[in-house]
């Protein structure tokens, strides 16, 4: 723009200058020529008057002092006199336009350019009374001639003019463009610029607002997206069609903490399954897979996104399925265990009943057999009761909480277990201060009962079991300790699982259902209590239930 404005101003100045100069030259030159012609005609008339009737001597006298050229031509065209050249040598002038004109009309004039075009000669002729023609001629520079003589000056003037024009043009350009150059495009309407620009500026203002609002909207959406993806527990990765990672959310960055997650998809992870899933998605197909990393299982789900260009972008979801898998496995184990545990007593019952039905049993043995059937049925019932209890705890059935005094509860449990303890030659103690917690009486009793029952079942002969209640740092607790066989460290985390048994071969002997500690665990969760287990193999076990501080 600057260039163009400068160019036009400069060109205008230049053209104006040249045109003016040439017109001026022509005008001045033609004026001069006119003066010359007038002077010549006057002179000619004077000379004619002075040398009336062709007085050749008079003419010679005038001619010798006269600056211009004087020629006298006879009526037939022969040159009679010339003050600059020898008349005898000159050719016949009858055909010269001014002579011919003068001969015919009395007065004639003409002008001729020299061969070099730089000079112009004017002729003025008068027919004298004797028929001869007097001609006066004067030579002056032609327009070209004038130009060429003045050329150094002209060049100088033109250069000067050009310089001035250039300076002016540049200054003008600066002045004209200043308001445009300094336009504040962020706030177009606050500019003090040309009126012609105001539609543009208004439009710009409108578009600025539009852009700002759209940008705001985009930013808001981006923030929303970031927020959502950052809160997600699932990992989310976006890949470009070239396989570069465009985006990876917080969960992914936490999963692969040492990776910067930029560049190709393989910079994130080099697991074979991951690579397969991502490559299939980039190839345009959805893919699923499972990846193991640091002991956890992740499910990978990738879908391809058809882009505008060639190739497919891809989205990858990474979901931690460790817990789900574990829960699934536990559920399967539980189902298998339940069916097994239910089947064993039933098989016995079926067997005894079948023998009795076939009449193989002697009448005196029937009582013993019936007793066995009853005890197996009893076991079945206990098991089913345990399962029901457990499923109630699982459901979290809404039983109201009430204040329960734990020491008294321990006393009840002791009374219930006294017989069994005596059978196993085990002494049962209850000690500690009375302490009250808020909870479900039946569940709490069941929990303490199960713990004490286990303590008796897995004890050594002449061992002891102690039930202790009290408060530690204001938090109520129940501790059941025994002098029994203890639990191996490897088994300790698993004893609370359903149907888990440390020694599988002894289940029949000790008669448990394998659900006792599981009920304790669920009961503890219901009461927000914490279970601490300390056990040494061969020395004994100590399980403490710590209840939350009373409010």
């Amino acid at each position, binding site marked *: 723009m600057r260039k163009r404005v400068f160019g036009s101003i400069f060109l205008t100045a230049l053209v104006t200058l040249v045109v003016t100069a040439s017109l001026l030259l022509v005008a001045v030159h033609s004026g001069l020529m006119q003066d010359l012609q007038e002077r010549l005609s006057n002179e000619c008339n004077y000379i004619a008057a002075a040398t009336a009737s062709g007085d050749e001597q008079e003419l010679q006298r005038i001619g010798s002092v006269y600056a211009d050229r004087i020629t006298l031509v006879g009526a037939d065209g022969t040159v009679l006199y010339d003050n600059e050249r020898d008349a005898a040598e000159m050719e016949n002038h009858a055909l010269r336009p001014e002579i011919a004109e003068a001969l015919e009309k009395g007065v004639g004039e003409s002008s001729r350019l020299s061969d070099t075009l730089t000079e112009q000669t004017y002729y003025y002729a008068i027919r004298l009374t004797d028929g001869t023609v007097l001609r006066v001629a004067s030579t002056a520079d032609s327009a070209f001639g004038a130009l060429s003589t003045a050329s150094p000056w002209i060049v100088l003037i033109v250069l000067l003019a050009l310089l001035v024009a250039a300076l002016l043009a540049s200054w003008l350009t600066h002045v004209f463009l200043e308001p445009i150059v300094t336009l504040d495009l962020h706030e177009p309407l606050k500019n003090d610029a040309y009126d012609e620009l105001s539609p543009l500026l208004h439009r710009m203002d409108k578009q600025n607002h539009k852009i700002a609002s759209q940008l705001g909207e985009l930013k808001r959406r981006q923030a929303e997206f970031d927020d959502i993806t950052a809160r997600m527990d699932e990992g989310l990765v976006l890949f470009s069609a070239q396989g570069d990672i465009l985006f990876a959310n917080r969960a992914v960055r936490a999963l692969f903490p040492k990776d*910067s997650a930029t560049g190709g998809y393989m910079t994130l992870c*080099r697991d074979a399954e991951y690579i397969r899933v991502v490559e299939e998605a980039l190839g345009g197909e959805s893919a699923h897979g499972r990846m193991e990393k640091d002991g956890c299982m992740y499910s990978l789900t990738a879908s391809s996104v058809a882009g505008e260009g060639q190739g497919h972008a891809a989205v990858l979801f990474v979901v931690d399925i460790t817990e789900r898998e574990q829960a699934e496995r536990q559920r399967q184990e539980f189902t298998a265990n339940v069916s097994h545990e239910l089947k064993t007593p039933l098989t016995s019952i079926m067997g005894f009943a079948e023998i009795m039905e076939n009449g193989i049993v002697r009448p005196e043995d029937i009582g013993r057999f019936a007793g066995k059937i009853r005890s197996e049925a009893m076991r079945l019932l206990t098991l089913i009761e345990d399962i029901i209890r457990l499923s109630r705890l699982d459901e979290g059935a809404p039983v109201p909480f009430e204040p329960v005094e734990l020491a008294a509860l321990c006393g009840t449990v002791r009374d219930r277990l006294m017989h069994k303890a005596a059978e196993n030659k085990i002494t049962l103690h209850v000690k500690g201060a009375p302490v009250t917690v808020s909870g479900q009486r039946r569940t709490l009793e069941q929990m303490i009962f199960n713990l004490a029952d286990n303590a008796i079942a897995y004890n050594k002969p002449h061992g002891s079991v102690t039930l202790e209640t009290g408060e530690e740092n204001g938090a109520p607790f129940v501790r059941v300790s025994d002098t029994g066989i203890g639990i191996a460290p490897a088994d300790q985390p698993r004893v609370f699982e359903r149907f888990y048994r440390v020694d599988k071969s002894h289940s029949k002997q000790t008669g448990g259902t394998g659900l006792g500690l599981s009920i304790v665990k669920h009961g503890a969760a219901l009461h927000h209590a914490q279970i601490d287990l300390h056990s040494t193999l061969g020395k004994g076990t100590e399980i403490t239930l710590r209840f939350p501080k009373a409010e």
Partner: protein
Amino acid sequence: MRNRFDSQLLELNNELIAMGALCENAIASSVKALLGGDTKLAASAIRIDQEIDRKEREIESMCLKLLLQQQPVASDLRLISSVLKMITDIERIGDQASDIAEIVTYLSGACGHNAHIEQMAQATIKMVTDSLDAFVRRDLTLAWSVIEYDDVVDNLFAECKKDLIAEVAQNPGDGERVLDILMIAKYLERIGDHATNIAEWVEFSITGTHKAQEK
């Protein structure tokens, strides 16, 4: 033109990572086969090794083409030349993984409960993974840690050898099996050395100096 070169370099980078991933896969398979006595996994390790060999040739020709056509300088040249060296080591690791897998297929019953072999296997896997991670992230400290970690593997190899000597002294009839396990231990130790080489080339591609020059 330069744009194309950049994308070619990126492709080379990705190809090397892919080759590394294959190699990790091969070791993981053969080690799993070794510890679990699973011949199916051993077969897959051998199959992956063939793929690694193909990849090596591919990357090699890519490197040569880049060197000839683009005449790279400075860090680009370092990257290409170190890739050219690294693929040799990665390919050797793949070979050794497949060698281990081969031994596992006729090593009746797993390697026994040799704790040191297991530790060695885990340590070499860690070294290979770390050396590749160092390349992926251009992580100089990680590369150094790999180079230092080689001593751990070497010590484990010595321990392993002691175990096997004791074993063969106790039970001379078991000589062949013991020798096979010794071979496996040696292969693992070599894998560790190759991982060290990779780490050294990673260091070269970043800093321009190679361990061999410093001494």
